[in-house]
């Protein structure tokens, strides 16, 4: 007989005993943006991608989006992107940065923490060029600006959403590779879920241990891991597994459960359009915003105004509501969000 989708997961149980959302007195988060966009017509920005490169529907693409906006709003003259290869040696990264600096691009944005070491060397060689690095808190080099995010805070909200949407009081997390960065996602997610529902069970799994990058590139494994969690009673899964996330979505869909996307608004992402009806929300990491802000600051010559960390209070991270599947939850989630933004809830970045 032909299988016609639809599973049994999610039909059982009434969900968790939920904590009430925190009461926030000071209202919503305060986002303050520096004045109107400056003119950047004389600027040439270089972009060095991390593995995954353009089209990853994740932070590489988000950084491009930031520059696109800069072009529109600030008249940015020229953007050049250079792509990285998998497992490439350190000097390839240096060459890429050097090449951009030498060709007169300023600022040069290194997308991804993998550039940290290369940047230390190249930045010293080009003291007059301004560099930025995404995802690595690289301090103490005058011409390098780190653009980092509070992933754990965004993931906290994902955890809250999951806790409110589970019927089995059992949720899952699927990480691609067990790196410190991905563990921040896990930590925030678990903390959020626990905050909203103290009794909740959380299954956490990584596809590969640190150092084996294939965990971000293997949807089949993603599907199996998710399937395992679903069979074990999980009915909401949050993933931070790059391209392997596709596999997670597909398992979730065939089990009739729910998923939370990561980095960008995955509901609107064409490559996973097949699964959009199970993507109830996505944790947003606004690399685009950070890049735009950085370019604007550079155009103004005021790099000191770039925030130390793009967190909830700066809208550097957040969550999406596309698809309207969590509209009823927005007040609750926003309450948590305000509590974090105002510092009433502190989210740890270690699981």
């Amino acid at each position, binding site marked *: 007989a032909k299988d016609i989708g639809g599973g049994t997961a999610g039909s059982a149980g009434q969900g968790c005993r939920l904590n009430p959302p925190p009461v926030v007195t000071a209202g919503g988060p305060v986002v303050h943006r520096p004045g109107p966009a400056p003119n950047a017509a004389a600027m040439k920005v270089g972009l060095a991608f991390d593995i995954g490169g353009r089209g990853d529907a994740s932070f590489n693409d988000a950084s491009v989006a930031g520059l696109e906006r800069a072009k529109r709003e600030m008249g940015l003259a020229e953007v050049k992107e250079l792509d990285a290869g998998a497992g490439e040696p350190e000097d390839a990264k240096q060459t890429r940065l050097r090449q951009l600096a030498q060709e007169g691009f300023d600022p040069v944005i290194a997308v991804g923490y993998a550039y940290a070491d290369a940047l230390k060397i190249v930045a010293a060689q080009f003291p007059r060029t301004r560099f930025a690095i995404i995802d690595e808190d690289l301090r103490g080099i005058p011409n390098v600006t780190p653009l980092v995010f509070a992933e754990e805070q965004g993931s906290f909200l994902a955890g809250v959403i999951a806790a409110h949407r589970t019927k089995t009081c059992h949720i899952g997390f699927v990480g691609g590779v067990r790196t410190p960065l991905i563990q921040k996602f896990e930590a925030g997610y678990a903390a959020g879920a626990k905050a909203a529902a103290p009794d909740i069970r959380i299954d956490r799994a990584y596809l590969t241990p640190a150092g084996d990058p294939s965990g971000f590139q293997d*949807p089949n494994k993603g599907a199996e891991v998710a399937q395992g969690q679903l069979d074990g009673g999980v009915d909401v899964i949050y993933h931070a597994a790059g391209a392997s996330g596709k596999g997670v979505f597909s398992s979730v869909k065939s089990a009739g459960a729910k998923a939370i996307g990561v980095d960008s608004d995955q509901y609107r992402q064409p490559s996973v359009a097949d699964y959009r009806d199970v993507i109830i929300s996505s944790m947003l990491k606004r690399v685009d915003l950070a890049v735009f802000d950085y370019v604007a600051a550079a155009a103004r010559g005021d790099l000191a105004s770039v925030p130390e960390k793009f967190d909830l209070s700066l809208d550097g991270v957040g969550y999406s509501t596309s698809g309207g599947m969590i509209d009823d939850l927005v007040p609750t989630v926003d309450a948590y969000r305000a509590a974090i933004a105002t510092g009433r809830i502190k989210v740890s970045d270690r699981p």
Partner: protein
Amino acid sequence: MRTEVRTGTATGRPQRARGPVPGWAHAALWVVVGVVAVSFASYQTGLPQLTSSGTVQSAVRLGIPILLAGLGGLWAERAGVINIGLEGMMILGTWGGAWAGYQWGPAAGLLAAAVFGALGGLVHAVATVTFGVNHIVSGVAINLLGAGTAKYLSTLLFEPVSKNPRESPPVPKFDTYSAQPLGAWLHELENLQRVGISDVAGVLGGLVTGVSPLTMLAYLSVPVSYLVLWRSRFGLRLRSCGENPIAAESLGVAVHRYKYLAVVVSGTLAGIGGAALILNPGQAGYLENQTNNRGYIGLAAMIFGNWRPGGLLGGAALFGYSDGLQLRSGGTTVHALLLAAALVLLVVAAAQLWRRRKLGAGVALVAAAAVLAVYLATDQLPEEITAYTPHLVTLVVLGAASQRLRPPAANGLPYRRGEQGARE
């Protein structure tokens, strides 16, 4: 040329080829031992996942690409051509499958994957059969070439659509089918959670539910390969090329043609194995590096299976099972697997003892004790190790069993038409 004329027997007396138990019964016996061991472990540890239909379905999904790649290896090596280029052919298959699949549907994707894999096989055949290049060398080159070509083509053809040079646009998948009402009945049995019965029901249930046409094709290709290679004239000729091509040629077998055919079929199967990574439900489209060494693992499964389809099936199943288990339920079940392993080792020891091989029995017994000790002393294995359970299992099993393996006699040897006697 090296025609051996030695019998190897001191007695000069022809000995009987096989024991009293036919090979297939032997294999079936071991399957039973395995299932019993695993259900015992499942009972002892209270982990139904060990034999749940879900785990078995995972094993099937993960095992199919390996099975197909292994069958590809089998075809080539039975004709005497080592095919380490399976990985490259598989990559070509994934690209071809995605490219045709996203435009014209899964059936076209399957066809294109087969064709692309076959092209890879053809290159290998030209290099090894026509030009006499070392088979492994050619295979390494084909792996490079396959990866490079797929990357290049996807930058060229996928990027405009998917906006990502490493990824294809979404590819439609095959539908899945289940054998009803058998599947439902097995599912009920499984849910009873009775010792033994539920385990068997889980395993069988996993095999007959959620099957896609591609999976059926893979299932079928095992007996078909057996029938074609061992029960048909074509297969006899093909195998003779792997055993003694000069003899085959002297009997009018067009050795080159059979080798070509075998390697092309090999590539085709590897290509279909690639398609299994993208056209089965739950899988993404083409993605750079998604084959992730499955071609090599297929080769390992084939060696593991002693260059026979049945054994190869066992190898792929073992690999898929241990991978599925560790992916789905992580460290605890892999830990429980240690118990099953200890049990199997005990049976091995008993079997060795029965055949009066004291040394073998001793080694197996010590190994069983060691595994059991690890099981009792720990309650979880480090994730860095469990993530590679299948690889470890393959290595250990090969280490234990590979001495009895029997590759085709002329496997990997260069062969040229009319060359015999050139050095006599």
